[in-house]
């Protein structure tokens, strides 16, 4: 079992014929993901990497039964691409693109929610269900199938933690990168709920960072609804206020969003918070050992 993506994922890649889209389509195919369609306006009718290309997502869905979309189109066009996917009938949209204006996301988030479509990202590495499907850019080599469900606002930091788990022989059910933007699609709670319900997932790892209050809200949710053990790491204890730390969402402002707050909130509900990334795997190994 897994959450959100797996053997039944039928993927359409928006922006498949671009540089990034093309590269990662090949990576996803190599991993064994069922990539059934690509979309690039004006390139409909072509075939790339053995996958048919369509002008619109609606056509791709109709012709191939795609149920999930991953978006690699440039930031200026990415909000439109998310709307298109959400309106075309896929159940999950994964937006890798970084740099979408946040006011666009205010509308996009409402639009996808109204249609009951799930959105992961933007500005995220996507999802990986080891051995089943890779939707996005998470390197397949870092992961192996197992009991740990991972959810994170970050990319390479997540790879680091997953890699350390894998090195110690502890596999993952699904790795979900929800992205580093101020307004993400799915948030920690949306993913935690699914991990709690997923039979394969026995342990949950949450990787947060400064900015916003999503970790604090996640802590409340964990207190009320999560019975599985949760481990966490929060990046940015040393980040100064008022400065954007790379991610558009990683900023402490108005006294809100400090790592201390988040760590305190998580520890208060029984989450074990590691003091450095590798410690997450150490703590888990010790507890299950």
């Amino acid at each position: 079992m897994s959450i959100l993506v797996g053997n039944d994922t039928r993927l359409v890649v928006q922006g498949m014929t671009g540089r990034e889209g093309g590269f990662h389509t090949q990576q996803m195919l190599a991993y064994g993901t069922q990539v059934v369609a690509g979309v690039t306006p004006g390139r409909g009718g072509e075939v790339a990497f053995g996958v048919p290309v369509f002008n619109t997502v609606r056509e791709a869905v109709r012709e191939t039964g795609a149920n999930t979309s991953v978006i690699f189109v440039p930031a200026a066009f990415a909000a439109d691409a998310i709307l298109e996917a959400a309106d075309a009938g896929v159940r999950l949209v994964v937006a890798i693109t970084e740099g979408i204006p946040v006011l666009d996301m205010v509308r996009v988030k409402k639009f996808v929610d109204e249609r009951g479509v799930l959105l992961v990202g933007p500005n995220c590495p996507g999802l990986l269900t080891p051995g089943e499907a890779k939707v996005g850019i998470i390197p397949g080599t870092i992961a192996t199938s197992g009991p740990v469900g991972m959810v994170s606002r970050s990319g390479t930091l997540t790879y680091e933690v997953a890699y350390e788990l894998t090195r110690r022989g502890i596999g993952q059910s699904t790795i979900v990168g929800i992205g580093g933007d101020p307004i993400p699609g799915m948030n920690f709670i949306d993913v935690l709920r699914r991990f709690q319900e997923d039979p394969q997932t026995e342990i949950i790892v949450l990787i947060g960072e400064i900015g916003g209050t999503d970790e604090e809200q996640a802590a409340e949710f964990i207190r009320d609804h999560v019975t599985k053990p949760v481990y966490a790491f929060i990046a940015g204890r040393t980040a100064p206020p008022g400065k954007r730390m790379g991610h558009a969402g990683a900023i402490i402002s108005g006294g809100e969003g400090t790592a201390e707050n988040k760590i305190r909130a998580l520890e208060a509900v029984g989450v074990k918070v590691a003091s450095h990334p590798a410690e997450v795997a150490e703590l888990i190994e010790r507890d299950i050992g």
Partner: protein
Amino acid sequence: MKLHEYQSKRLFAQHGIPVPQGEVAETPEQAREIAARLGGPVVVKAQVLVGGRGKAGGVKLARTPDEAEARAKEILGMTIKGLPVKKVLVDPAADIREELYLGAVLDRAARRVAVMASAAGGVDIEEVAATTPEKIVTVRVDPLVGLADYQARELAYGIGLHDKGRVRSFVHIARALYEAFVASDASLAEINPLAVVGDGQLVALDGKIVLDDNALFRHPELADMRDEAEEAEAERQARVNGLSYVELNGTIGCMVNGAGLAMATMDVIKLFGGEPANFLDIGGGARAEKVAAAMRIILSDPHVKAVLINIFGGITRGDEVARGIVQALEEVRPSVPFVARIVGTNAEQAREILQAADMVTASTLAEAAQKAVELANR
């Protein structure tokens, strides 16, 4: 990207918000001319992109053009929180009766724009929010309809306005502020104080706008407002090279791929007793020229005593990254020690390449941080 007060107020004025008819001066003489043109007393205000300029003496009243010139001369010679004052705004002095607050900001938790008002304007609104939150009235804007008149009225009555004309002006200004916010893709737009002046009118005496950097591509006219003089050279270099860089106060420079990992790297340095000199995310891949640019930026900080490179080789193979680093090292020829830690795909080969180039390597982040701290403390 932050806008200066004078830029923010011009933008407000374009959307129909009443602002004082002041002008910007870069010399004391210009300040005198503007004061003479305006007639009557003026306020001379330092235009710097930091808060607290009032307490720092960057805002002064002048009764005459002579005084305006003198005050401008003082202020244009100042440095406020490390930033030299290059411009002053000369505004007619207002007869302030009341000071309100009105601001629009992205409310992340609500996934909406929030518009906030308070009768306790003129002071730091974050302090008001922290100490007397009941003095702030907030409405959240449904993007389907924008800021509705009824919401603007709820703000007006909520902060105790009752005069009919004043409520009408407030509603007009609140809508204009929201329009300015949306039209400029702002993440913050505030008027503080929104003053009730002698004739009962509402005037935006001070203004602040922070723009969403991700949206600047569609607002070239706003992007052009960037005041490069206010930007540290290292930050400018980083921006031009597509790097995320934030200068800090420590001695250990950091170069990391990925924002989360970069923050974690800073944290681990601190954990082992060091102080990070910067946040730097070089992003995906690691081509030699980008690595070289990052090195130059880090080394431009004279406090840097050692540099820690932390790279997770994922899609990009570790050995390729290592070769990029070696190439950049040859170009930049740094004088401080470097510690490199590459993990993930082909990490072993990467380590061999770096060691062959006489670089200190480490296999874990903790080990790398410890080595960097040790080197920096020598």
